[in-house]
């Protein structure tokens, strides 16, 4: 009985010590940062003097005029009637018309594969981020295969303009050229749409491609992030 009592008292000491440690840990980990932030905020929020000669009405007029000017400048920045937004992380797209999303869905963008040819030469299959412009629209596009398409297949690279570089019916019914060899086009591998599998171009499902092709005029903006 005495032994049990002794153990209970030892256990109580351990609980008291653990409780004290937990209490101080709580104060240091959670309470102190909150106190610091409150002090920081109140320290910065020093009162500013009120000028009795200040003309509030005139100031409001000036501010309203400034707001109008800024609004006009902002409106000039809007990317036109129709534009496309591509999310390369989630492989999704949003098609906008009159500032409203009219279609959204899956797409495929760059695989981030770096094809290492030798110690000096490599190809990185990445979709560039930023804003691009639709430079040209084509129906029934024919793919002109670049060097990496042969290297990737372990085939010898033919000279420029060789007939083996031209391949029809692999880019879908439409293509929108964005410059620097990048395009928005279709694919034979529809089941891979939604995964990062391309060489840098943006691939869409047939129906989505048709909608994008018909909505975006030449000169339309394509935002890629």
């Amino acid at each position, binding site marked *: 009985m005495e032994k049990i009592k002794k153990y209970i*008292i*030892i256990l109580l*000491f351990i609980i008291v*010590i653990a409780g*004290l*440690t937990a209490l*101080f840990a709580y104060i*240091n*980990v*959670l309470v*102190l*940062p*909150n*106190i*610091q*932030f409150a*002090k*920081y*905020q109140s*320290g*910065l*929020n*020093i009162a*500013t*003097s*009120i*000028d009795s000669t*200040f003309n*509030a009405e005139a*100031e409001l007029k000036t*501010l*309203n005029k400034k*707001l109008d000017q*800024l*609004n006009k400048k*902002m409106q000039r*920045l*809007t990317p036109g009637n129709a534009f496309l937004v591509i*999310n*390369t*992380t*989630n492989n999704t797209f949003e098609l906008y018309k009159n500032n409203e999303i009219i279609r959204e869905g899956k797409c495929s963008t760059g*695989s*981030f*594969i*770096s*094809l*290492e*040819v030798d110690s000096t030469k490599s190809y*990185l299959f990445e979709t560039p981020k930023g*804003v691009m412009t639709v430079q040209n629209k084509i129906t029934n596009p024919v793919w002109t295969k670049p060097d990496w398409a042969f*290297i*990737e*297949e*372990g*085939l010898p690279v033919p000279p420029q303009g060789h007939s083996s570089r031209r391949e029809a019916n692999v880019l879908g019914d439409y293509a929108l050229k964005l410059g620097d060899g990048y395009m928005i086009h279709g694919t034979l591998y529809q089941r891979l749409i939604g*995964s*990062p599998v391309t060489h840098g171009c943006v691939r869409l499902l047939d129906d989505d491609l048709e909608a994008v092709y018909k909505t975006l005029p030449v000169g339309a903006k394509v*935002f890629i*992030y």
Partner: protein
Amino acid sequence: MKDFFKKYKFGFIAAIAVFVILSAFTVVRFIQAEKAVKLAIDEKKINFAETNVDNAGWNIPEIQKKEKEVHWMEQQLLLAKTDSLNLGINLADSTVQVLLKGTVLLQANILKQLPEHFSDFSNYPAYLDFTSVSKIVKEQSTSVKRPVKKVRAPKNENEVQEVKHDTIPEAPIIWQFVLNNNIEIVITGVGLGKDSLMEMNFNKDILKYKFEKLKENVIPKTYMPTLYIWLNDKDAKAIYRAIPGNGRVVFKI
């Protein structure tokens, strides 16, 4: 009673010793923390004096509202001049945005924000300091900006192998960055659990972050306010990958 104290002398000494050590440690930390905050405030106030901001209209709510609108637009236009993707943290609407040339490309809802009143700056210079375009000067993340996979080019057709893509989902992102106006932001992704519902562990996360801070800063020498934001993990990763290393950030409050 006397016998009891005598019998468990060691226990009492241990408890008192723990209490004294922890009290002393906490007192020292409180004093140092106070000094660190004062130093941070003084540094900010030097900047305020340099910008020479004097705005009598700020105390009138109607003018203050208009001033905020003007400032937000001015900052957006400033960002629109750059060709890079920028980050907009709109605490007024509880959203985080990816901006490019004045267009909002992605808007993610803030699931949780701590401290809740992070943006309560009633003073005009403090408001300007917080909401003017700032730049990321230091960042770290559990994810990578460009997940490059190196593949050796095959020497012939027989060597061609299909590239396998990762099927295991990546863990939710934790993205920490410091701005050039001495504000730290921690963005945490909230992923889906086994039941396809969002797994939100705000308390566990905040305890982990604050404990890490305590380890880094046992005796606080400097102070930097930290804003913790939780977003849907898909959005958080997309935002992290979109914003360049030294990206620009703008706040709306």
